[in-house]
């Protein structure tokens, strides 16, 4: 017996699979890729006893072994291919006891594929609330596999699960016969396929026939042979599959009647359904959704503010302390103006990202997100999207990369492509730093109607602009991309649940960690490079610039002189040269060469913009201004031509609008390339978003100027 077996968790969506996964693996989990496909694989270790440490794989939730979308394909790919590196030694099918009937369909299919199986009977408490009693002993007898009663939320029953899994590894108990044996109906077809591929399992042979186009482990000649076999036997796949489902459900119905006693008073709506009447109400439904969105924006702008201020002033204080205590010189400057200024630009956004992910996780966990999909489907459809596009679009507010990966649950190809192309228009958390600073510069912090902060409303306006433009872009794409494929939207509405706080905590922790770590490394590296190119210039241009200033202004006060020298030196540096080089292109938008440097450096990732601004304006500021935050520096920045404040509302809004639309994120383009498996779509995405950004920013500046 293997000392490190593989256990796969299989189950319907909302059956409690992920809860069980978290119970078994705790913090010993990691996210990787399934071999050959860019599909997130959640796996973790589970010490069963002293000799056995299992690897648990959390497979995506599915209703049957026949995949309906891209993310479901992996389940069949693994379970139908014993040669797959992740093929499980034992599969644990997690079953929602309150809906045994539908959950058993998948179970019987997995068991029929010949994988040693344990049935984990979950959500018995929900079943009890609905006055359903499940007799698990009888269930085990009728199914012919071990059945374990668990509570995935509390971890009850995991010890029994260990025993059952060990038992299935040592001496597998398999059901005596298949729940559905295709050889009963099409014996010749099944035996031909079995002979051709040296298979022993009738149901596996059927999967080869029905699903061969989707199986990644079959090559083209093998698929051709299967096509010939199908042709020869005049086999109709959809008809047979429909028959299979009906036959299975008939057998399941017989089992369920025997093991479940349902004492629910007929026609009594559950409290979840009563709640739905309000949440799906024509008026209240949208009002509540609007309120929830507003709450999210209030949280990330108003509630996060005290935390952000604390971090901001903490970094500024540290910077001042370092400058005082360390000897003056290029190394100290690199540490304070380069590294610390860039780092401060990242750390300050942790509160906002944490709040955002906290609220999104709560919406997902409670079951409210699927109601949102229902009330939004009709509207989304008008724009060539799908109710399911709501999750990518809302996640896009956090980050477009996971959002684009989340489109895999959209079954229709065109709906999915359009969702991928427009999702980056949703304002992601990387734009938040830019919005925050620029809004704070030009929008006064006032209360409106007693509750709402004017800055919060401005922020919400920008997010809405992103949303509206995403919808409009989708509409245009819908007209451009014609298709005959029939879109559909069929989705279970899970009952409302209290959020699992450990899940929510894990999500928030994971998102903050990856932001600081992934984005942080890039920002830090670019900050350092930028500091270098802004501190040094070609030849001795910079020293000449300094001498020139001194010569031209012999009478200037020391402070003023210092500022002018710093500014002239920056202009003469490599970065300054670069900024001047692109200035003609961005001039019509109202930007100068300093902003040009920031734009260029943020091309790979927009969050770099703020770090760059910190670095540029730290270098450009006088030595007596230590401890001044980036916002203050921008406020003090003067327009060299007019002498008035550089950051006028026209310039700030032009920059804001530019960042709403601009496709400045390499990771997103890479994600689009991976998900669409082509270079065409990321190119389309880059070009249309950049064009949109340039034109709208131009219009904004010219109108407000």
């Amino acid at each position: 017996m293997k000392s490190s077996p593989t256990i796969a968790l299989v189950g319907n969506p909302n059956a409690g699979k992920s809860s069980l996964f978290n119970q078994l693996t705790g913090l010993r989990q990691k996210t990787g890729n399934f071999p050959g496909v860019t599909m997130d694989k959640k796996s973790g270790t589970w010490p069963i006893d002293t000799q056995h440490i299992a690897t648990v794989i959390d497979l995506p939730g599915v209703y049957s072994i026949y995949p309906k979308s891209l993310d479901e394909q992996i389940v069949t790919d693994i379970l139908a291919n014993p040669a797959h590196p992740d093929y499980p030694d034992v599969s644990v099918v997690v079953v929602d006891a309150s809906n045994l009937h539908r959950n058993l369909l998948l179970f019987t299919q997995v068991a029929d594929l010949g994988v040693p199986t344990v049935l984990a009977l979950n959500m018995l408490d929900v079943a009890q609330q609905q006055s359903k009693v499940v007799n698990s002993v009888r269930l085990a007898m009728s199914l012919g596999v071990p059945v374990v009663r668990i509570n995935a939320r509390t971890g009850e029953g995991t010890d029994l699960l260990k025993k059952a899994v060990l038992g299935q590894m040592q001496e597998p108990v398999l059901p005596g016969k298949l729940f559905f044996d295709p050889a009963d109906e099409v014996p010749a077809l099944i035996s031909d396929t079995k002979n051709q591929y040296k298979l022993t399992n009738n149901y596996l042979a059927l999967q080869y026939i029905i699903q061969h186009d989707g199986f990644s482990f079959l090559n083209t000649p093998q698929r051709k042979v299967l096509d010939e076999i199908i042709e020869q036997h005049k086999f109709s796949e959809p008809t047979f599959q429909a028959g299979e489902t009906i036959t299975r459900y008939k057998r399941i119905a017989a089992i369920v009647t025997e093991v479940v006693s349902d004492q629910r008073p007929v026609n009594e709506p559950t409290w979840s359904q009563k709640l739905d009447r309000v949440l799906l109400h024509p008026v209240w439904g949208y009002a509540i959704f609007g309120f929830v969105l507003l709450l999210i924006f209030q949280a990330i702008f108003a509630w996060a503010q005290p935390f952000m201020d604390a971090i901001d002033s903490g970094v500024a204080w540290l910077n001042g302390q370092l400058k005082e205590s360390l000897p003056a010189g290029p190394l100290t400057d690199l540490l304070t103006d380069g590294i610390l200024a860039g780092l401060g630009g990242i750390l300050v956004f942790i509160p906002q990202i944490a709040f955002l992910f906290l609220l999104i996780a709560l919406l997902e966990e409670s079951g409210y997100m699927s109601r949102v999909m229902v009330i939004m489907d009709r509207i989304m459809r008008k724009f060539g999207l799908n109710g399911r596009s709501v999750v990518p679009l809302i996640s896009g507010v956090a980050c477009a990369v996971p959002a684009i990966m989340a489109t895999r649950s959209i079954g229709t190809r065109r709906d999915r492509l359009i969702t991928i192309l427009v999702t980056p228009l949703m304002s992601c958390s990387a734009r938040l730093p830019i919005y925050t600073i620029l809004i704070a510069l030009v929008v006064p912090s006032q209360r409106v109607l007693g509750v709402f902060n004017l800055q919060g409303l401005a922020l919400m306006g920008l997010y809405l602009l992103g949303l509206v433009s995403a919808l409009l872009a989708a509409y245009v794409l819908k007209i451009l991309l014609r298709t005959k494929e029939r879109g559909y939207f069929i989705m279970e509405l899970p009952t409302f649940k209290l959020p699992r706080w450990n899940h929510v905590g894990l999500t928030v922790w994971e998102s903050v960690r990856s932001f600081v770590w992934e984005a942080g490394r890039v920002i830090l590296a670019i900050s350092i490079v930028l500091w270098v190119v802004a501190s040094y210039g070609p030849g001795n241009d910079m020293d000449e610039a300094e001498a020139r200033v001194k010569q031209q202004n012999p009478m200037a006060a020391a402070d003023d002189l210092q500022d002018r020298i710093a500014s002239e030196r920056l202009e003469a540096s490599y970065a300054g040269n670069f900024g001047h080089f692109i200035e003609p292109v961005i001039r019509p938008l109202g930007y100068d060469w300093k902003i040009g440097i920031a734009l260029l450096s943020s091309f790979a990732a927009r969050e770099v913009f703020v770090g760059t601004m910190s670095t540029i304006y730290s270098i450009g500021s006088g030595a007596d201004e230590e401890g001044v935050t980036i916002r203050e520096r921008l406020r003090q920045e003067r327009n060299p031509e007019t002498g008035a404040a550089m950051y006028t509302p026209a310039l700030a809004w032009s920059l804001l609008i530019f960042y709403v639309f601009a496709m400045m994120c390499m990771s997103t383009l890479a994600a689009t390339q991976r998900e669409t498996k082509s270079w065409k779509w990321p190119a389309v995405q880059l070009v249309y978003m950049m064009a949109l950004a340039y034109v709208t920013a131009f219009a904004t500046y010219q109108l407000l100027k």
Partner: protein
Amino acid sequence: MSKRSVADLKIGERATIESFNNQLMSLKLLEMGCLPGAEVCLHSKAPLGDPICLNVAGYCLAMRKSEAATILIDN
């Protein structure tokens, strides 16, 4: 008169599924527990009347009206 479908149900109305008129859609619906002979009840509608939410096989299933129209019912 043509056959009624689930899309014609009023809120709170019950019916029994008889057959489907679209094979591809029926594969998806069957797996979700919409079986011939099963009882369905229209429990609520989205604000614009589409999608609709059905009680079927002991749980709540949301679908578009166009999908509901492929599920024929007997009266």
